């Protein structure tokens, strides 16, 4: 809204308010018209709030919007916080919505940067992608579960619904409760790609819509198994070793633990301006050196000695 039209608008509002005040005054002296009072005041309130909101629109500041994967979101929130502290006046909007929503948002231009925790599909390859970190995928069970290592084949059979009891896996004689993420989630996509391959995840599996809920259910149900982002494993659940190899940073760097996926930042064209600055900041040592604390793996470490 430019200054002139705003002035006009305010003048219009002021006149409107005057009329209403006069009406309110008149009607106060006419007992039959009491109900009008309420309506009048309501209208005045509505006008005022409208005026206020239009003022807020006017005070613009620099702003970038980052949207996408809920796996990346908590980390991106932290990075944005640090970046905003460095550049006062800049506002970074971090939104969730999921990898697919993020990809769509950046294609349509409603987000400056998209976040994806799955590889791009062929028809999405037109976007410019930058790997900002790697995340491991952890297969988790209840801490009391005697089973602590499985082969990829066993994991695949469990999630495909072929192995239904822990007994076959040298565990207790109980049915396995399989917990997975919903269709379309980046974590599920990564699991499908890295573990299941062409196999389908069983229809009988329980489906939940966030890493947090999967972890919550597995931490309470002794017979359950699920998968979540490695960075989100805590002491309430146990991450299963894959062929005897624990999901540690070292094992990941040596490429022994193979369940890892990239965290991608996406832009429509080659990033420039503020989005570029933010991406550079995330790739800087300051942020990359913090990643291991959060359970993520820095990009450079992997790029350095180990090719993917």
């Amino acid at each position: 809204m430019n200054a002139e039209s705003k002035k006009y608008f305010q003048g219009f509002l002021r006149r409107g308010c005057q009329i209403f005040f006069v009406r309110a005054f008149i009607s106060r002296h006419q007992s039959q018209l009491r109900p009008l009072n309420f309506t009048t005041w309501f209208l005045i309130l509505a006008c005022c709030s409208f005026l206020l909101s239009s003022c807020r629109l006017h005070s613009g500041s620099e702003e970038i919007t980052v949207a996408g994967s809920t796996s990346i979101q908590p980390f991106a929130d932290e990075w944005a916080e640090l970046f905003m502290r460095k550049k006062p006046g800049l506002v970074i909007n971090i939104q969730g919505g999921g990898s697919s929503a993020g990809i769509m948002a950046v294609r349509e231009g409603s987000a400056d940067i998209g976040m994806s925790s799955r590889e791009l599909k062929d028809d999405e390859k037109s976007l410019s992608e930058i790997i900002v970190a790697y995340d491991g995928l952890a297969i988790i069970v209840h801490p009391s579960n005697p089973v602590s290592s499985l082969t990829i084949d066993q994991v695949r059979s469990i999630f495909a619904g072929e192995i239904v009891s822990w007994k076959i896996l040298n565990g207790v004689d109980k049915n396995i409760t399989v917990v997975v993420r919903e269709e379309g989630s980046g974590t599920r996509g990564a699991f499908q790609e890295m573990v299941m391959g062409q196999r389908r995840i069983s229809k009988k599996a329980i489906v939940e819509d966030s890493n947090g809920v999967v972890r919550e259910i597995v931490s309470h149900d002794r017979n359950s198994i699920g998968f979540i982002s490695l960075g989100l494993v805590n002491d309430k659940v146990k991450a299963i070793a894959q062929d005897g190899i624990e999901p540690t940073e070292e094992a990941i760097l040596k490429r022994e633990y193979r369940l890892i996926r990239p965290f991608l930042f996406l832009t429509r064209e080659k990033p420039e301006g503020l989005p570029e600055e933010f991406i550079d900041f995330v790739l800087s040592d300051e942020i990359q050196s913090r990643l291991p604390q959060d359970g993520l793996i820095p990009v450079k470490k992997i790029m350095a000695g180990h090719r993917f």
Partner: protein
Amino acid sequence: MAGGNMIARHEGSDRLIKISLLVVAFSAVSVLVIITIFIFEQGLPIMMKYGLKNFLLGQNWFPSEKSFGLLPMIVGSLLVTLGALVIGVPLGLASAIFLTEFSNRRVSRFLKPVIELLAGIPSVVYGFLGLMFLVPFIREKFGGSGLSVLAASIILGIMILPTIISISIDSIRAVPDSYREGSIALGATRWQTVRMVVLPAARSGLVAGIILGMGRAIGETMAVIMVAGNAADIPGSLLAPVRTLTSNIALEMAYASGEHREALFATGVVLFVIIMILNFLANLAARKQYRKK
């Protein structure tokens, strides 16, 4: 002269109010129209493309493989709703009968607001309580994961209580006292009067209450997602996880793109039609009652 002026002004403001209320009322209706058009516009093309039969009768929901069978969710919705009614209707009717026919005025004056308060609790709270207490209870007592048809039915059964109770109370109170007096004068006991005179007389109102409760149960999402387990499979037992139509939309909408997204709108179309049918039935039942009076 002054008086005539005032009346004219009253009429003017009356008209103003009338027009503004009309605008507000129409904006509410237009929202409904917009939603309807939007859902159908987004959902119908994909239903036509893959065939109505595949959508309604297909048993496999694998959006990534372009397989969009909604049957498990339709069955799931109906099953959970039926379960909710099995739990909610006897409890609700019993409470309503007690509060209108058997309790003294002071007790019902206290109990009725409390029951109505149940309706004000956000559904996520019901879901959370279910997840924290009901699900572990079912897991330990009956086995399985606890996230099940049973858990969802119980939670929904409690959630529809206020609807059923308050509508039942209204329709039982609407039965004229002369009916009761006549019955008791003929030597019937209190319970015989309720069973054979009051309930039949209030029948269509009770049915309307039950159908509205059913509408609430079939539309509920959050609480169901939290306790139902959401497996897209036709449940084999009461302890198996189940996914409803609403859960299907809410669960996957965040990540869905392309045809997957459209298929979720198609889920909305199916739900829309089911709820329309229920509303139609409710109206029919309610109208019947008025005609009787």
